[in-house]
């Protein structure tokens, strides 16, 4: 049984990781695109329109990738996690079906209109279609987060005698205290990714001395939005999320922070260290006393419950992975604020466009927000273990009863091969679009 679940989890982890490269970019990018388009309407300066249309091309490639890698996600609930689907489908089916009905149609219809219909519609309607694309992509994020929030902190349900979860209060799916902080945190993180991509393409154009006017605009936009969103990811949205974890999933909180023993008189915050699961301590630890208690409860000497407080069956099953994911996310987030802060200073002093070390830094920063976003999701998903529905349904009890591990490994290998090809295609398409540049729009 344990072995069978391993491949199911690995397949889900692999396919969702690959999938989430794309939506995190499209969600933030859709907002930046309508900012460009809106600014064009106000200023009538063609460069903003070029920018909007250029990034919509990149958006479209990512959207396509999101669709083809998203269908396997929905299917896998049924194929690999049939018992989970059977027991909870009446509840999370609501939000997932709403996503299909509301966001996908909105996004895909208006994306086509935005790309093909500018001349036909005029500028104001063109802006409006861009706005609907934004609305669709954020609605999609909201409904997925609502689904996940229910798994993290179930509300509005009743468990029947046969073990099935049924919905009793539809509205509670959306007033779930887990939902809003998680949604805002996720959207801000998605804005970090897209603003870094925008800024990085700008830095690239400045470094190769092509499309420099556009490059400056992209870089400036990327740095301003990048700094704002990096700050908002940490505070207040990240802070609120951490407090939710401490409140609703204390075992996950202790594990991600690396607190092995309950600290009665205020807990330290761990900066660096490697979890040693045999001796139940952190090796090579560097920590600052009392900060964690203050950050979590605004009291320096408040008690924080450690992992020793919980039975092994209640603790996440991969504590080191959870701990590292969390520390990579937080560490990268801090670095982002630093680099974007410095870039802002240079921008303010009008030195950013010619200061090569910073341009190179911004160019090569681009994979890291993706990593931060993904590790953030690993924290949420590993922290929820050993449960699928926190406190109620264990992961081992959610798997398909009839699918053997040999079949799962077969399909996992197939996905790996196919996604390699898909990744290559993605790089070629995006690379060509960037190489082509934003100026190619005039007929």
């Amino acid at each position, binding site marked *: 049984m344990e072995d069978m679940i391993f491949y199911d989890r690995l397949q889900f982890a692999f396919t969702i990781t690959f999938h989430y490269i794309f939506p995190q970019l499209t969600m933030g990018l859709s907002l930046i695109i309508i900012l460009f388009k809106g600014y064009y309407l106000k200023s009538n300066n063609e460069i903003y329109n070029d920018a909007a249309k250029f990034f919509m091309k990149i958006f479209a490639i990512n959207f396509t990738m999101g669709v083809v890698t998203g269908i396997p996600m929905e299917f896998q609930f049924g194929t690999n996690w049939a018992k989970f689907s*059977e027991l909870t489908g009446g509840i999370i089916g609501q939000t997932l079906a709403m996503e299909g009905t509301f966001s996908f149609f909105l996004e895909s219809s208006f994306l086509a209109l935005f790309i093909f219909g500018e001349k036909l519609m005029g500028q104001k309607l063109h802006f409006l279609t861009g706005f609907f694309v934004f609305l669709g992509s954020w609605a999609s994020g909201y409904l997925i987060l609502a689904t996940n929030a229910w798994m993290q902190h179930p509300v509005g349900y009743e468990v029947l005698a046969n073990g099935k979860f049924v919905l009793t209060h539809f509205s509670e799916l959306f007033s779930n205290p887990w939902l809003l902080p998680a949604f805002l945190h996720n959207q801000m993180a998605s804005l970090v990714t897209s603003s870094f991509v925008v800024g990085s393409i700008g830095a690239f154009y400045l470094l190769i001395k092509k499309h420099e006017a556009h490059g400056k605009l992209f870089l400036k936009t990327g740095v301003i939005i990048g700094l704002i969103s990096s700050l908002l990811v940490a505070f207040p949205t990240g802070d609120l999320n951490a407090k939710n974890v401490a409140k609703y999933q204390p075992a996950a909180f202790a594990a991600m922070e690396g607190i092995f023993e309950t600290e009665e008189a205020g807990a330290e915050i761990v900066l660096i260290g490697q979890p040693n699961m045999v001796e139940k301590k952190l090796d090579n630890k560097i920590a600052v006393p009392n900060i964690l208690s203050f950050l979590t409860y605004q009291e320096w000497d408040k008690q924080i419950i450690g992992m020793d407080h919980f039975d092994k069956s209640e603790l996440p099953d991969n504590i080191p992975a959870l701990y590292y994911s969390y520390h990579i996310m937080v560490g990268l987030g801090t670095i982002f604020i630093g680099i974007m802060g410095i870039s802002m200073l240079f921008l303010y002093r009008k030195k950013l466009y010619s200061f090569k070390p910073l341009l190179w830094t911004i160019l090569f920063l681009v994979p890291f927000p993706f990593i931060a976003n993904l590790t953030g999701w690993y924290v949420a998903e590993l922290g929820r273990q050993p449960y699928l529905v926190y406190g109620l349904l264990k992961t081992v009890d959610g798997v398909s009863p*009839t699918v053997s591990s040999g079949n799962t490994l077969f399909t996992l290998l197939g996905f790996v091969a196919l996604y390699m090809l898909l990744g290559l295609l993605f790089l*070629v398409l995006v690379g060509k679009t960037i190489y082509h540049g934003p100026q190619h729009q005039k007929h």
Partner: protein
Amino acid sequence: MEIFWFIIIALFLAIFFILDGYDFGTGIIHLFFAKTDKDKEVISKAAGLFWDSNEVWLVAAGGLLFMAFPTLYASAFSGFYLPLIIVLWLIIFRAIGLELRSQIDHPIWRTIWDKAFGVSSLLLALFFGVALGNVARGVNLGGVENGVSAYEAHYFFLPLWNPSFSPSTTHPGVIDWFTIVIGIIAVVTLAIHGANWIILKTNASINNKLKSVIFNLNIALAVLTIFSVSIWHIIEPHPLANYLEYPAFLIFPMVYFIGLIGTFFIKKFKKEVYGFACSSIMIVGGITSTLATMFPVLLPSTNDTNPGLTIYNTATSQYGMSVAIPWMIVGIVLIIIYFLVQKKLNAGKIDDMDYGH
């Protein structure tokens, strides 16, 4: 309430098969009939511009099935594990072919990805037909062996085939000679549908020839249809029982035959859209007739130990189904609005349009 959701999901699936159906059919025609570079280009564009917005309907139908009939979703998706994942791979591979073909301007490169697009389209049409055949035939629910269930009564796991390829055993595989017949019917139907789409949306040089192709394929389809109806009793001992009980259901096969007969007049149609309309209602009629034969069963059982899955024993709670009706109605109104707006923009032939590509 169960019936409401059943109709909604059947509607979404039918629209998916009309829309993505012409996509698959376009690929099949592309594989066998497109010869010149210009035809290949414009025909792959006739699919390439629309496939992702068409597949949204599949995602939506899946989500609705998950919500309204979670037990069916869980049972069928895990039981048909391998064919479903293979369908996913084909969908992705087909999209890769479509998007990659124009990236490098070299004949060998194009040939490779054109073949990838064509073959995966053909296999998808075949697999969707096989899937319909499986749903009609039923499966060994509960994995019964000598009267004893190996799993809970509503779970099963189907191998891709069993050595006999016979549909009348208690342990059928995904592929047997009955489901292959249904698969071939799907391939022929979607090839006709795709040819109609190409005629409607492009100025390809083969358009006139395609009308003869459609006519000939339609003869084959009529023969296959009569054959499949005559052998239907093998998988369902009383195929007409539902039609005798609910005579109104006869409308579905009638719709199918109107489409089938209409298609024979392909060369006489004054408007190209009539051909497309005929193949569309043929698809709707074919799917709904099959479902009507089974209603209210969704997945029959091939053993006597466990009952088949119906819309009643797989549905979620009454509250869950009723609370979703208001948002679904809002959703459908919105989808109709998007559809009308899009249709206005996409009218006309593809090669006449300036898409700024």
